[in-house]
């Protein structure tokens, strides 16, 4: 199996995730797209680990998973707070930083 398979797959997932971050209106959707990105990165790391035969890549991938979990937890907590305050989580309407 060629190495580029995993890497290309990861690139595709990454691009789709980028599209999702840009295009999606719902904050939760955006977080999901970020998950896509992170997974693509993990896949990449594992593929590198496989290519080099060391375990470093897998270690990193586990780290990414852990961080992703923490991030989703905090992120969703923030989304909930925003929802409580603004009654909406449509990013279009959350433009207080406009200026």
């Amino acid at each position, binding site marked *: *199996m*060629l*190495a580029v*398979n*995993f890497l*290309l*797959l990861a*690139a*595709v*997932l*990454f*691009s*789709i995730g*980028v*599209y*999702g*971050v*840009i*295009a*999606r*209106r*719902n*904050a*939760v959707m955006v*977080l*999901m797209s970020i*998950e*896509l990105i992170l*997974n693509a990165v*993990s896949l990449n790391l*594992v*593929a590198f*680990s*496989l*290519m080099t035969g060391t*375990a*470093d890549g*897998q*270690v990193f*991938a*586990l*780290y990414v*998973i852990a*961080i*992703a*979990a*923490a991030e*989703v*937890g*905090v992120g*969703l*907590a*923030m*989304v*909930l707070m925003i*929802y*409580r305050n603004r009654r909406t989580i*449509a*990013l*279009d309407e959350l433009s207080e930083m406009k200026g």
Partner: protein
Amino acid sequence: MNAVILAADGVNVAQNVAFGIIAAVMIFAALNVVTTKNVVHAALWLVVVLSGVAAQYILAAAEFVAISQVLVYIGAVMVLFLFGIMLTRAQIGKETDLNNKNWALGIPVALAMLGLLAWVILDAFGDDVLPDSGPLPTVALSDQYLGIYLVPFLAISFVLLAAAIGAIVLARKD
């Protein structure tokens, strides 16, 4: 894309086929994640993607990572997502304009990024063949974790702690 799939010597056909099927499914699911109009459907499609990723991990001889993926991502993160969707009163069923105004801007950016990455990858690793080694024993992983990467391991535990506390603090009703 000349050598995405097999047909050379020493190529593990089964592995490639399995990879290809799973990859197709993953991509299809990812596309649905970012294009579906139903938030819950998007979450479910994400589950599919995550599962596919786990399958790919197994194909990549990284069983521990695969299991962790399933456990953490699909088991915890996706549940968290679903809870988040529920708590933010997402509309059950179809919902119009889940895309923001400038969604069209994302296409060229994504395509550019894809093109760039693809080119770089192909340029760098175009002809590399993955070694046909067996899966790494989990001991090797733990050797790394408790050896070289000990400090990051401990840091991760702090991060998780902080995240948990932070989530609680943020989300409580005061």
